[in-house]
């Protein structure tokens, strides 16, 4: 495997009985990337991550992580990765310090090394004053920071984060992402799954998963640039009526009311803007229609809509 690659997977598939949770996924993650998995619940994000860390055997496919063949070398890989889930998986009935002490021993850090490293992490993740507090009594954001501290205790080269911020407030999410970029700066590769668009947009590259398949991948910028002229903003005094009028119209994929205007995502084509304007005028609605820049949500909706054309932006 190329030295510059952290993860390389081909034809990754996982079936549970008749259900195919992950369907023939190809994945390439370069070192020092913050790679995002964007997808709705049940799209196969967690299962893919579990297979990549060797926690689950794939039904089919080749996995190479940091040069280790998975699942064959899964035990050896575990010394070099960190894995964190949405759910708080440290011990709620141990204190912050006790949890980290335990994990340090699990990772075979010597006692002095553990003491120094734990002190450093408590400072970095703003938990120094919480050292003797039971983990179960921390706030959601503090819990996630503690979990992250526990995950990076042994200085892993690669971090798998499975919806790490799903249970925390926006302020804590921002702080959490600050910490992630700090880790990336220090050379750690991160694979983060999320269902937040704003988080996905911060990744250096991302894959959109739907029903176990990668339906789009690339940098957020390229993915959005691939949707020219497909997003229209309809400014009208009666956005709900406009929405009813356009409902079911050929070429319309999704609509969303944004304040007093209506955002229309279409299949594209040169005539799309004119068709929408004419349809609204035919109903006697006063409206101004103009194209706007697509956002990641548009990319997501296009990628996961039934009659999609797969979009693979060049990186």
């Amino acid at each position: 495997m190329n030295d510059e690659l952290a993860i390389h997977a081909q034809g990754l598939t996982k079936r549970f009985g008749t259900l195919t949770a992950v369907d023939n996924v190809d994945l390439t993650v370069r070192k020092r990337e913050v790679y995002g998995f964007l997808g709705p619940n049940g799209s196969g994000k967690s299962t893919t991550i579990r297979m990549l860390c060797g926690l689950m055997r794939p039904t089919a496919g080749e996995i190479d992580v940091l040069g280790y063949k998975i699942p064959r070398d899964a035990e050896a890989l575990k010394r070099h990765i960190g894995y964190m889930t949405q759910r708080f998986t440290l011990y709620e009935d141990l204190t912050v310090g006790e949890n980290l002490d335990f994990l340090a021993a699990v990772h075979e850090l010597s006692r002095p090394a553990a003491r120094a490293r734990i002190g450093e992490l408590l400072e970095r993740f703003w938990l120094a004053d919480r050292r003797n507090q039971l983990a179960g009594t921390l706030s959601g954001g503090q819990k996630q920071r503690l979990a992250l501290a526990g995950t990076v205790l042994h200085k892993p080269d690669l971090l798998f984060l499975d919806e790490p911020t799903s249970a925390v407030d926006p302020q804590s999410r921002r702080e959490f992402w600050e910490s992630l970029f700090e880790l990336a700066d220090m050379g750690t590769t991160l694979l983060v799954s999320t269902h937040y668009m704003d988080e996905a947009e911060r990744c250096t590259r991302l894959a959109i998963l739907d029903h176990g398949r990668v339906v789009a991948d690339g940098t957020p910028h390229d993915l959005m640039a691939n949707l020219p002229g497909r997003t229209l903003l309809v400014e009208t005094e009666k956005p709900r009526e406009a929405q009813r009028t356009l409902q079911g119209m050929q070429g319309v994929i999704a609509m969303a009311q944004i304040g007093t205007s209506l955002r229309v995502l279409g299949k594209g084509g040169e005539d799309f803007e004119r068709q929408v304007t004419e349809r609204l005028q035919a109903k006697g609605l006063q409206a101004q229609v103009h194209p706007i820049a697509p956002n990641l949500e548009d990319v997501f909706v296009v990628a996961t809509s039934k009659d999609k054309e797969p979009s693979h932006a060049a990186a």
Partner: protein
Amino acid sequence: MQLRRLGSIIVKELRQLRRDKLTFAMIIGIPTMQLVLFGYAINLDVRHLEAGVLDQANTARSRELIAELAATEVMKLGKPLQSPEQVDAALRSGEISAALIIPPDFETRLERPDRPAAQIVVDGSEQVIQAAARQLAAFPIYDNTGWTSRTSGIEVVNFYNPQRRAAVNTVPGLVGVILTMTMVLFTAIALVRERERGNLEMLIATPVSPWELTIGKVLPFVGIGLVQVTIVLLLGKLLFDVPLRGSVLELYAAALVFIVASLSLGVFLSTLATSQFQAMQMAFFTFLPQILLSGFMFPYAGMPVAAQYVAEILPLTHFLRMIRGIMLRGATLGELWHSLAALGVFIVIVLSFAVSRVRKRLD
């Protein structure tokens, strides 16, 4: 297996245990409560008690008495004995639970209503056997004048529990019952809890091995088990004056083997259960036969053969034989080796099943 890691798991487990007030209370509360509740008698009828016969008279009348007693089916007078010493040894090893002793002067004693004509020596360490023997003591003996009205024809000599105190029989059994409850239940729950709360998902992504985790979580319970044994024995001594006739060291050795057997069962159940609730159900599923068939509630001798076969599989049956032997009859582990061996076989089989099921993956 790495010692620092193992140690850290044990420390973690003890810290969690210290904060889990309910579990902590149960560890102390269960033995205390049960000791007080069960400190009373459970009397039941017995049939086919293994018994020996020492017929020193060896006359037509004495053989008649033996045949008549055998016809009651309470005792199975199968083992002929030659001397009082043999009676002693057979009782102590648990081979027989009672012995009919007919003295050489049986014929002359029959003529004298003030002296008992024969003796039934019973193993007082099992209270149901005492009750059965008391029934037999009322057995009328046919003499020259016809059916006699006297009821003291046979004297019952209670070997190991002369005052027939129920607690003396119950307390040793309770040690086994309490260990069964806490060791199986708490280990199964402690191991499943790790999985249910998601801790296991975090742990399997680390270099920790499943055996470090299992052993680290189970070892503290060995200590807890020994503390419980001590509590029951001390309370038994203080409240009910239960004797300890054998070696204390051997008693703890037997308890240790039984604790390991129960922990193995707990580990095995934890590999089957997917939730703490399921683990609890499974643990109770194993309690019932153990408590009902082991000889704690109902006498082993009174059970149908099929039930006796089931009882032989249960670790509590063997532990009860050992602890009653050591505490009440002053037996040594050497004399009780078959029970010890049975527990050893149980541990090997159950642990092998558990080993084959412990995996370090999620699917």
